[in-house]
């Protein structure tokens, strides 16, 4: 029997590189990803996969991204602290004008429509536009307009798009969710102000002690916490068939990292979840689950 699953790939900046390892190990263990939905970095990885890139190929892409060159600003864009210039240019080279109709498997990217506070599931039109909207971390990256909707990062409302994944999936396909955020009640390490390594440590320390910086720090810390709360609650309400958590919660969203090390964490998470994954296809338990419903 073919082991088909549908994936919901969560957001979380560089933590999302672990999705590559998740995809690879799933393939190696004979699982077929039949459809996938992603938010933010999860949308980026998911889009490449849906375009037909192998996990090895995606890994190569990410290892070659020069993080310092991704964040330039473009004139005429919505205001933000950093921009997506480098990334947008790189994506243009890789994806070009391709649209959702060019994908090999069903895929959706989610974004947040700020004005209405609504999750928007992007499934048609330009792939690049959808990805840039899904990754537009508010204030840091520019808000994007699609069909008149001002869109920011899908992770603001829903860090792991289980509902979108379910909408795409064929009936009876188990939904596997890959959240990247730490559970609630665990001290946050994320988003405490991390400054560039090029600033000398003494100056760094000085800046960190500035009152406004500390106020901003509190602000980002709470944003992280709400993100974790929303992840926890969404998973509780949307009930995916399985949750796999790569151990990446300690990483910072925009931190500079070794891609290969993080990919390995994704692989390990699948490895650890293998018994539960196989159980999804054990005919007896599957029949039992249906009987319970």
């Amino acid at each position, binding site marked *: 029997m073919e082991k088909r699953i549908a994936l919901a790939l969560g957001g979380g900046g560089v933590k999302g590189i672990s999705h590559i390892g998740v995809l690879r190990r799933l393939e190696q263990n004979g699982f077929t990803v039949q459809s996938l939905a992603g938010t933010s970095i999860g949308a980026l990885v998911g889009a490449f996969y849906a375009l037909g890139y192998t996990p090895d190929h995606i890994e190569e892409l990410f290892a070659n991204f020069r993080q310092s060159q991704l964040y330039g600003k473009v004139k005429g864009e*919505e*205001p*933000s*602290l950093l921009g997506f210039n480098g990334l947008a240019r790189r994506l243009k080279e890789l994806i070009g004008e391709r649209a959702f109709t060019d994908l090999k498997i069903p895929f959706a990217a989610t974004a*947040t429509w*700020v*004005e*209405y*506070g*609504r*999750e928007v599931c992007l499934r048609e039109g330009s792939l690049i536009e959808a990805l840039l909207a899904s990754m537009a971390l*508010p*204030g840091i990256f520019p*808000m994007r307009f699609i069909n008149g909707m001002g869109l*920011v*990062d899908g992770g*603001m*409302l*829903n860090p792991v798009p289980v509902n979108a994944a379910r909408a795409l999936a064929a009936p009876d396909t188990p939904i596997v969710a890959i959240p990247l955020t*730490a559970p*609630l*009640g*665990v*001290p*946050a390490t994320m988003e405490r102000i991390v400054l560039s390594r090029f600033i000398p440590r003494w100056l760094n320390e000085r800046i960190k002690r500035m*009152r*406004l910086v*500390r*106020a*901003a720090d*509190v*602000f980002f*810390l*709470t*944003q*992280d*916490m*709400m*993100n*974790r*709360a*929303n992840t926890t*609650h*969404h998973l*509780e*309400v949307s009930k995916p068939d399985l949750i796999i958590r790569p151990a990446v919660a300690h990483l910072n969203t925009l931190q500079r990292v070794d891609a290969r090390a993080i990919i390995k964490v994704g692989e390990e998470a699948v490895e650890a979840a293998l018994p539960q994954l196989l159980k999804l296809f054990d005919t007896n338990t599957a029949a039992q689950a249906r009987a319970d419903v």
Partner: protein
Amino acid sequence: MDIALALGGGGSKGNSHIGVLRRLEQEGFKIRAVAGTSFGGIVAAFYALGYTPDEIEDAFSDFEQTSLYGKSPGDEPSFIGVAGGAKWIEGHIRDRTFDDTQIPCALTAVDLISGSEVVLSEGLLMDSILATIALPGLFPAQRRGEYELTDGGVLDPVPVAPARALAPTLPVFAVTLNAPIGETSHSLSLSSLNLIPEPIAERLSRLRYARAMDVVLRSLDVMMRAVAEYRLTIDRPEAIIRPQVTDIGTLAKVNVREIAKRGERAVDEILPELKDLFSWQKRAARALRLWV
């Protein structure tokens, strides 16, 4: 008809809690316990201390809303501070503690260090109020021992679970001020902070960094609304009262009595449903559930 109340956060919108309290009392509901978050926490504390809804309305109407902001020496860092508001509240609450309340009362806050919700129900009321209203980054966080406390609305905008913990056998009525997901809201945006006179604010809002900041504030509001809706889905209060306040900014200057009226209307809208909770069938079902 004994109930427990969970009063949600929402700044100025929270004046509608006053109308909710008044209508519930008039209709014969007995509020036996009250939990509150943020502005809901202020109303909860006043009510638990024995202020009637009319007295709360008069007191809040007297507050000079332009004097809300400001910083005191020794505050934790914050963008605008809430020294004026704090001083005014202290004038009413003084050094009273949770032991002085006439009904059980709890306020919620969030600990920035451990990333978890903290329910405050002992010690000085004033200390807990300062913690529950500490809008992240905007108002100063409060250090209490090993905790660094900020607005409870971050994790629990409508404190249903704390209300239920105060009175486990009673139905919980939740009053939420957050716009439901998918509606326009004007709760948090740069202009809603009222920091600067209108013409200057208008100019400033055209600045690029101001606009970026505005997106950040609005996203925060969206996240808080998502947290609120999820919690209501998961915590299942027996009734949800939703005053129509989506047009009001969290820190807007408002007419207290007008907003309070909106709370009354919200109760009237679902009054049959609220009373139905006390039909003998529903009572029996609750008793049975508790007994099991």
